[in-house]
């Protein structure tokens, strides 16, 4: 099978300025000083091929570049060097409920969030009942979101997010919240996505779910070092690295 995501020699460097500045005045006054910065490589020379239908996990400690990698795949960040080629539509749920507005009602937020995820009005209207049913929030559908608990908000967000048609899903630590029954429901959705042959790139610290779902795991170690392999091996390596 051809790879659906091809990453070649990918590096991402962030410029960390010596002085963090948001003022035009300061910029003009200290023109030369403002242009000095440290280079920080969040990712260095990564190669990765992900095939259609694969469920790939990414693990690593905080600051190892997991989220940066997802953002590069999503096209939110642009590479400093190297390339990312994605052959298909991506649904970025890097964070659930991004774009939700607390002042709007749940109903209004469903439409807003659907639009952000790239659904059309017709699709949103057609799936509205499903979304509400999955979230189990029928009673509160016309209340403003600010009255919802954080768990309820995540439920609503997840219910909308899973309506995405995209063949490639980028998932960043979305299951950390929500109660046990809802998590179970989320995992059954993951199973369904797998059966449908969707490609999923999954970032998580939850090693149990990594072990359960992933076909392959990328372990981002410190610096430019990384390991690829079977979930069990990578998790073992990660655990031995992080043992205190």
């Amino acid at each position, binding site marked *: 099978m051809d790879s659906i995501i091809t990453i070649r020699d990918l590096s991402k460097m962030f410029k960390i300025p010596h002085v963090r500045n948001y003022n035009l005045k300061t910029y003009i006054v200290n023109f030369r000083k403002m242009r000095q910065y440290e280079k920080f490589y969040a990712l260095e020379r990564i190669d990765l091929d992900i095939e259609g239908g694969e469920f790939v996990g990414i693990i690593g400690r905080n600051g190892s570049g997991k989220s940066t990698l997802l953002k590069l795949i999503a096209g939110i960040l642009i590479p400093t060097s190297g390339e990312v080629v994605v052959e298909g539509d991506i649904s970025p749920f890097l964070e659930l409920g991004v774009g939700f507005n607390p002042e709007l009602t749940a109903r*209004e937020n469903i439409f807003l969030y659907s639009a952000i995820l790239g659904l059309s009005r017709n699709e949103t209207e057609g799936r509205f009942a499903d979304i509400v049913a999955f979230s189990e929030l029928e009673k509160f559908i016309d209340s403003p979101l600010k009255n919802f608990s954080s768990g309820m908000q995540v439920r609503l967000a997840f219910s909308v997010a899973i309506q995405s048609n995209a063949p490639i899903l980028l998932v960043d630590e979305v299951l950390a919240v929500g109660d046990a029954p809802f998590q179970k429901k989320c995992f059954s959705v993951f199973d369904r996505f797998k059966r449908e042959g969707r490609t999923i790139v999954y970032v998580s610290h939850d090693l149990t779910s990594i072990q359960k779902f992933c076909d392959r795991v990328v372990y981002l170690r410190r610096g430019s070092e990384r390991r690829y392999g079977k979930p069990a091996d990578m998790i073992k390596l990660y655990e031995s690295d992080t043992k205190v």
Partner: protein
Amino acid sequence: MKLVKKIREKNYPFLVNQFTVTDFKLRYSHSALGYLWSLLNPLLLFGVLYLVFSVFMRFGGVEHYQVYLLSGIMLYTYFNETTSSGMMSLLKKSSLLDKVNFPRIIIPLSSTLTNTITLFLNMVILTIFIGFSKVPIHGSVFFGILTLVELIILALGVSLFLSAFYLNFRDLTHIWGVILQLGFWATPIIYPMDIVPAKYHILFKINPMARLIHNFRMVVIMGEMPGTRNIILNLVIVLFFFGVGYVVFQRRQKYFAEWL
């Protein structure tokens, strides 16, 4: 070097629509008077300026001074509010910029459209005002719509330009505020153009807001048809502003997520 191939069949018009409508709702839903608040500002300004310049000082020689003044205020208020809120629109949606990939231009575009709804409502008020003021209606009024379209394109272009720089330079709000204030007095909004010595008229010719407001009054109040040369020149000017804003925005947009 870099290559991000995107085969996406996204429904961006729906996204523009949702951003525009929800912003409009949010702006007005939390006050009982809603839209009336946004009308209050130009009307109050109108009331004060009318009192000072027409009752106390008595500008002579301007026909239908009330409509002249109100139309100037409404068009300039639109430009003021659209560019000010458009400038900050990207930062207001910073969480989205950092997490979701969609054409960034949708954000300042929706912000402009939200303000355009208010402009449209204000034009309804102006029409009622014109009815009461007994300004004769001419066929040239239709060119007023063209002027409004030009105004929207100009405001969008300036918003694109400002928003693309605002992420790096947050003190632009103060700078732009001063420029808008100066612009209000450098544009014939309250005073007629002919009280200004002719040698300064060049300033009105290069000020796009002065051109558009003058044009609007010419076709709506005076009933004069605009010349072909004038129509083309105005279009060229607003498209130039839009073009510069668009190019600057597109060149900088790929770095927005890093600049937040």
